[in-house]
């Protein structure tokens, strides 16, 4: 089996740690827009990264192939592509394959071969398994068994673009100005214990879920063991991967609402829980009793996205920054407010979400503002 940790964790640390800049932007009406603002915003937080990783996730990206899983693949060696394509032909129906267009430029070094495939999984008539589960399985199989191959994006109508370099350089490299989406997230990376490899940049992806992350989770050891109990293999050894699998387990597999997922990952303190009304207290207590192993303890900010939804979340005692703002149908989430005001000087509302309180943008729904705004608006309407 290929050790895919080696490129990113060559000193065999417990895990790869990094600090970062995050930015996300979503038009809840579904209007497609270019990535220009996202790139400008993340570039404004240049100093939060160190040039060892930048990346983007774009949703609403491939409307013409919306029903197909879009696989973005890195090939780090010549035979990798041949082997992978044989694997893909065995496991999937491939309707289109093409090289991802790039532009070589200084600041983005040693790019691997970058290809994308639009596929549907081939069902095994003997097995009862959903397409999603099959794709997860096959992606994990390819990533752990085919040497020098890394599938870094595998959702429908979305895609991840990432590599080594500052995020603005990575955007230029991937010619992101040619793409449009209704939801963009981005990441500038400051790894502290790795020289960085292309696959290790954020966003981290599984199916259409992406996670960009800033922080270092002190509970990583138990989060990982908890997820292993549920069949996840944390091959990348990053907090981000753990966060992505936790979200997948809670929301996709256990069917919990996003707000509940936030309650698990950033549980309220017991002293707050004790003051809650009975029914809520019972629920939050039950969640913490059952999912205590998934509490992400220590500083983090996450922007989690999947088709139709973007979620920003900081840890329970808010040890990492997070700003949110709204202008019309557009929700902004950022490490620093300055990045938002740069691209949208006339924001209508901006706020600093509390620790553990998710900021959620959902396609077709108005952005839920924090409670204070709610109250003021209602009062205004009443008057």
């Amino acid at each position: 089996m290929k050790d895919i940790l080696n490129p990113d964790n060559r000193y065999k640390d417990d895990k790869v740690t990094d600090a970062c800049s995050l930015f996300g932007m979503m038009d809840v009406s579904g209007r497609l827009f270019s990535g220009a603002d996202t790139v400008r915003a993340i570039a404004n937080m240049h100093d939060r990264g160190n040039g060892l990783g930048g990346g983007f996730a774009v949703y609403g990206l491939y409307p013409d192939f919306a029903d197909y899983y879009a696989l973005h693949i890195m090939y780090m060696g010549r035979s990798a592509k041949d082997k992978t394509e044989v694997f893909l032909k065995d496991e999937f129906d491939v309707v289109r394959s093409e090289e991802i267009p790039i532009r070589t430029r200084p600041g983005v070094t040693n790019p691997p071969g970058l290809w994308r495939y639009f596929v549907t999984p081939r069902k095994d008539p003997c097995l009862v398994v959903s397409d999603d589960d099959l794709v997860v399985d096959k992606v994990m199989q390819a990533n752990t068994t085919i040497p020098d191959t890394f599938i870094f994006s595998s959702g429908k109508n979305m895609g991840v673009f990432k590599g080594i370099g500052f995020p603005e350089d990575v955007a230029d490299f991937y010619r992101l100005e040619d793409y449009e989406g209704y939801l963009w997230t981005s990441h500038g990376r400051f790894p502290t214990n790795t020289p960085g490899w292309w696959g290790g940049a954020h966003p981290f992806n599984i199916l259409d879920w992406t996670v960009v992350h800033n922080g270092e989770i002190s509970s990583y050891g138990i989060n990982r063991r908890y997820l292993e109990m549920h069949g996840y293999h944390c091959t990348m050894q990053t907090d981000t991967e753990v966060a992505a699998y936790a979200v997948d387990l809670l929301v996709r597999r256990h069917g919990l609402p996003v707000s509940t997922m936030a309650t698990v990952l950033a549980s309220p303190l017991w002293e707050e829980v004790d003051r809650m009304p009975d029914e809520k207290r019972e629920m939050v207590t039950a969640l913490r009793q059952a999912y205590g192993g998934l509490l992400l303890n220590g500083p983090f900010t996450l922007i989690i996205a999947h088709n139709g939804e973007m979620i920003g979340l900081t840890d329970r005692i808010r040890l990492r920054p997070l700003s949110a703002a709204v202008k019309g149908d557009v929700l902004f989430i950022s490490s620093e407010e300055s990045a938002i005001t740069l691209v949208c000087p006339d924001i209508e509302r901006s706020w600093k979400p509390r620790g553990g309180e998710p900021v959620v943008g959902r396609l077709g729904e108005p952005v839920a503002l924090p409670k204070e705004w709610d109250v003021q608006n209602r009062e205004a309407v009443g008057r």
Partner: protein
Amino acid sequence: MTVIKNNPKASHAQSTALPSYHCHMPSYLKPRFRVERSDRRCIRCQGCVEQCSFGAQYYDESADRVEAVDTNCVGCHRCVVFCPTSAIEIRHNPVEYRDNAYWRPEVIEDITRQAETGGVLITGMGNDKPWTSYWDKLCLNASQVTNPSIDPLREPMELRTYLGSKPDQVQIDPATGRLGTRLAPQIMIETPVLFSAMSYGAVSINVHESLARAASMLGTLFNTGEGGLHPKLYRYGGNTIAQVASGRFGVHPEYLDVARVLEIKIGQGAKPGIGGHLPGEKISAEVATTRMIPTGTDALSPAPQHDIYSIEDLSQLIYALKEATNYTKPVSVKIAAVHNSGAIASGIARAGADIIALDGIRGSTGAAPKIIRDNLGIPIEMAIASVDQRLRSEGIRNRVSLVAAGGFRNSGDVTKAIALGVDAVYIGTAALIAMGCTECQACYTGRCAWGITTTDDKLTKRQNPEIAAQRIANLVEAWSHEIKEMLGAMGINAIESLRGNRLHLRGVGLTREEADILGVSLAGE
């Protein structure tokens, strides 16, 4: 240390510190201790004579001097503490045999004692051998730069723990947003430290009361041990784990009803695989009523539970207890840590237990054959590591809470145990030391001068439950503060984020194989 003969009836009756012999044979044993008294300091108050329950001090009226019987001294230091003029020193009696690292004095003494009596050597407390303590070979982590440490004096730090079986998944009704999963009973403890099973009869009623009071002061639980619960302690039922052991002493509906948690005792770390024996002279009227046996009869706990010869039998008892209490209480199963603990624990979890208690080779006892105490079972560190990992590999770790017992000396040991994978720990010896115990190992005599392991009325009065409870509570409070400090240093503010988080442990001086079993890396890695 005394000796029992093979015939239990005849031999167990010996419960005094003085070895007694079945034929008139001169003893070759030398006294273990020497009582040295400064005659200049001694004011002849005879306090030590009064305090010594082993008959090691006496007053010679004709000479107006206080003298000692060194042979009787067990080294408990009761007299030293109570002498108003600090006149007494207890010293090791020098037994300077020719140096021999193998045939140590202890070995020679044990052989001599057995040659003189032909009996099983009985002792008290836990394994005292200088075996590897893995706690001393594990280091904890601390946050530096990449994530901040947290100051528990200024920020919340959560030790709250729930014992009980957890579901794999919580359902929320999408229509109502309400909780759709009913959890098995969960018992909240405010600190991950519980008090180990010590039976009334093995310890005095005042010790039971002290532990019960301390548990209620701390928001934690104490364990009745296998001797039932005196009715005057029913008011501490909410802080009680009621044990159901092989002798079924004191088990009746009310006992099960008042308790918070029920525990089936299969084994004990100090004496895995063997039963218990409380000699008749410790069975006072009160003890007898509580245990539901006649006064003065020996209380014999069989080695196995005779209705549990297999895992399916265990399951039946677990469910019998759950039925009896209407599924309102978690049922714990306590086993000694032995070679296949991982597989055994998996079976216990699948048999329906809510809690598994593991007791390691350092676990203590009121009385056990010395050879058993010192040689049977495995270190608790290894047992925790393998059981936690086994349950995780099988995907059933959620189904049970894991509690470890056996020699926890300080909050560092506790914190490391939690990082290895337990939900909470039991402490026994440490709580007794808080009350005054000095680890003299004479518990089996029933003459504990500190009034702990005795049912003698006069000795029992030496423990004032109010003061003793406060001492125990202080100890656990102190440990809880220290655990919070350590959590904060690791950048963690909830104990569940440390539980099973072995990345916060590093081994020093371990072989690679030992580190692998413990699931930790070595320091510097």
